[in-house]
């Protein structure tokens, strides 16, 4: 079976000549449908570059990126945009909600872009907001009137509103306190389990990384470790996982 995401011998170099910086070097990564992958590593190791390449926001200098079997290099900019709209959801560290749109409109616009209108639009928006636990009193508010946790829930609702097959999360807990961070991670896992949405999450938080089925550790643009179960994981991840298991799931 074809993997949902396939990075084949991907390299990425920024700049040229003596000042060129290599961000990724001959990287191979496969993500099957329904898998939750955590990518970990120190700052500057190339984690976010991997995410950007998967989303088609950036192009590899070498190698190929395939999403559901389609080579992104063969797709037009419009085609890649359409892929992100229909197939991929994105959750950012800084939420990136549109500050001058209400919570409801922040979620609804992607559905609207897919042609959903009127009552169907309202119902689907409401459903997804309820699903991520945003109280209805907040729907007509603006992002700056919400807490960080609420904002990230809205961002998650926006990401999953179009029922994507792949969810990309770039440090989703980076701007949250531990309680809200946990809540978001639980949400991601629930989506992964209930909807079989594939999740690729970049994090430098060992605790967050334990939420994945698989942890990919990167260093200097290369994958240095790819562990499919906790038994294979390095000691910090195992410790974090045991901590997680000992805590009840956030509501």
């Amino acid at each position, binding site marked *: 079976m074809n993997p949902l995401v396939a990075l084949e011998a991907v390299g990425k170099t920024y700049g040229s000549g003596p000042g060129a910086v290599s961000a990724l070097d001959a990287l191979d990564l496969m993500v099957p449908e329904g898998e939750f992958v955590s990518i970990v590593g120190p700052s500057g190791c190339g984690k976010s570059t991997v995410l950007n390449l998967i989303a088609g926001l950036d192009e590899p200098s070498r190698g190929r990126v395939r999403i559901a079997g389609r080579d992104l290099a063969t797709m037009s900019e419009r085609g890649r945009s*359409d892929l*992100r709209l229909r197939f991929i959801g994105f959750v*950012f560290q800084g939420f*990136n909600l549109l*500050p*001058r*749109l209400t919570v409801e409109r922040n979620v609804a616009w992607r559905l609207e*872009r897919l042609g959903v209108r009127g009552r169907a639009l309202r119902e689907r928006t409401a459903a997804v907001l309820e699903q991520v636990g945003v109280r209805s009193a907040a729907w007509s508010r*603006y992002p700056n009137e919400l807490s960080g946790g609420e904002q990230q829930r809205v961002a998650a609702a926006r990401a999953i509103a179009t029922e994507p097959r792949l969810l990309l999360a770039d440090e989703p807990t980076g701007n949250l306190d531990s309680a809200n961070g946990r809540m978001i991670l639980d949400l991601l896992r629930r989506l992964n389990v209930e909807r079989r949405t594939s999740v690729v999450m970049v994090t430098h938080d060992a605790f967050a990384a334990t939420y994945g089925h698989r942890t990919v550790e990167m260093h200097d643009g290369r994958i240095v470790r790819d562990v499919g179960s906790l038994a294979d994981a390095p000691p910090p991840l195992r410790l974090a996982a045991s901590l997680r298991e000992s805590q009840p799931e956030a509501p």
Partner: protein
Amino acid sequence: MIEGVRSVVRRLVLDLPQVAMAIVVIALGVALSAGVLLANHALRARYDASVEALAGAADLQITALSGGTLDAAVLDAVRALPGVKAAAPLLLAPAFAHRDGEVTRLRLIGVDLLDDATVRVYRRTGGGAALEDPLVFLNQQDSVLLTSAVATRLGVAEGGAFDVETALGRRRLVARGLLDDSGVAGAGNLLVMDLAAAQAAVGAGERVSQIDVVARDGGGVDALRETLVATLPSHLDVARVADRKRELSRAASAFQVMLDALAAMGLALASLITANRLATIYQARTWEMGVLRALGLTPAALVRGLVGEALVMAAAGVLIGLPLGIVFAQLIVQPVADTMSLNLQQVVTASGVAVRPAPLLVAGMAGLLAGVLAALVPALAAARAPIVSVLARGRSRAVSTDGRGRRTVRRISTAVAALLLALQLVVDTGALAGLTMAVVVLAGALAVEPGLRWASLPLGRLLGPAARIGVEDQGRAPSRAVGATIVLMVGVAVVVWIGSMSSSFEAYVVRNLMLDRESDLSVDSGFNDIVVGDDARIDGELLPKLAAIPGVRAVGAGVNGVSLRPETGFVAVDPVRFRDRSFGEWPLADGAWPDALERVARGEAVLADATLVARRGLVIGAPVQLTTPTGVLELPLAGVTPTKFRSPAGDVMLSRDLYQRWWRDRTITQAFVVLQPGVSVRAVSDAIRSTLGRAQRLRVLTRDELAEWYGSGVRSAYSFLDTLAALVLLVVVIGTADALAASVVERTREIGALRALGLTPRDAAAQVLAQATAIALVGIAVALAVGHAMSFAFVEGLVPSLLGWRLELRASWQVAGVAATLGVIACLLGAFVPAARAGRLSPITALRYE
């Protein structure tokens, strides 16, 4: 100090791409105001010089109260009075010089050259007396003196011959001497002839336009005036030249105020756009300012630094704008001269614009002030923001809220504007109209922000999901867009206002003048010019000759004039034109005598136009007096017609039979010809031209051509509207581009997120174009309301107060439509680059933007 300026300049050089737009805008504002001020002052100076040069040393001026010319025989009686040091006759008439198919309008003056130097100053080019040998000049009827400027334009050297056309036809004249630009030459495009030769050239007989009198030294001017009034016939007016100059100056000042207001508006627009630009630049530096303040820089020092930068930037704009203004002045001086001529009913010549320091200084200082004012608000806002939130927030924008205070101010200004507009219907003072116009603009400006908010929802739904995000964002945080929309609103409103003014004038002039001019053909002197209001006469002997042309059924003439004390325009009309409807109609207001037209035709009554009736408070049956060369003519008022435009004071219509008797004048201004059924208008028109038109310069027009001629005269006087509109649209392009560019910069990260979530580059660009569309639609909607409200206040209040005309407002939907369309195009043009930039933004770069 020098180091301070250096550091400011270094800072501006670093920000040059952002600052350049502000410099360009200031430069355009300065160019507009410098251009208008230069042209305005040059024309005013020329106008004053013209009045001064022709008046010369005269203390008193004798003219005919009945309008037109006066008998030169009066001169001997004047000279015989003991208090008179000198008395000089002057005949004024239009003339046209031909050179290589180009026609130059000249003012022909006939003077007693041997005596006129006691009143007016004649200086020969290169020095010396005006005439080397006066006898040679006087003995030859083709002798003229030309100003050097006119001689150069006509390519005539001293002793050279050239063709000139007067009321009696074309003739060849010889330049016997050239005058330098001082003295009488200041009166403009002068052609000086001996009085007798001039009278013969224009068919004035023994008559002159005025007699200028110099009082003896030590003798009182007022005492001499009283003696002259007592001695001369009652139909002659003796006025102090100083009073007359003051009167002319007052009329010219009113017109100047209007132009100065336009210049000020240009600078205000520039200041607004600059404020918008500076706010963007300062916002981009918010974080840096926060750091500086955290390190100890006081808010006052920060504001000083920012205002200093604005001052240097404005100085750069002024340096670029002033030369542009000089070029702009040359472009607009002719149309502005035409408008001034139409409004003052005086020939105002425009021969280039002298570069005067005063207008440039005013425009330059105003430009600097505009720059400083533009910097003040955003600089204070930047300096007052709490340091912690500034450092935390970086470039992100605050969401705008429509506070209670703003709502209250908006409601009050709208209510006051509505109240003032309603007041125009009952009170027509210039000051109230001016206040109304200012409040209307203010109310319009305050309506822009909620307008953008309200428009975002329907427009967003209409333009599609991607565009909707852009307009909703703009509706919620419209600070930059508000500035651009106000610029568009004010610009289009001004164009609509001037367009409506022009249209009201044109419609009213054409409709009212054509009411009684419905005959198949009209015949008048080719010297008539609606813009400068000449009433060139033709001999009444033309009428039987016209009637004799085959195919002509009836001929009726009219003669126009102005009688003074009190000033009253008059139109003397052949009785047949009151009786035969083929010549047109005389619609009368309610209350007119049932047989009013017949009574007027019989010479038993007169009609008056609405302007005269309103000014004098006349009622039907009231006596109306006109001063004539043979005494005061008094007749009852039989009916009221629409305004006829002879005099701002109002006009009287009477029978030409009466005119011939009381004025002893057989000349006419216009003849109207009604043809027999089935006769070709073109054939008769050609016949008139080929027979009667050979002897003198006649203009033969069909009904439609006559209407077009009246209309084109008014339109040409408002042709500067095109230049103004072009400038406004340029400012709108810059303003919109600036606001949207700022919006794209501010929303960079948001656009990155949108792209990451599936929006295409085209969607990102569409958002910016949708924002421009919202700016255009809201700006234009408010502009149409504001422009028409301004037109209403202007027509109801300012026109009657400044010019005397009582017009009916006629909205120019054509001008409004064109202005609105061009406004939308300008906005979309302005949005093009920011939209392209939004489309090209790399999502990754955008997401990293802080």
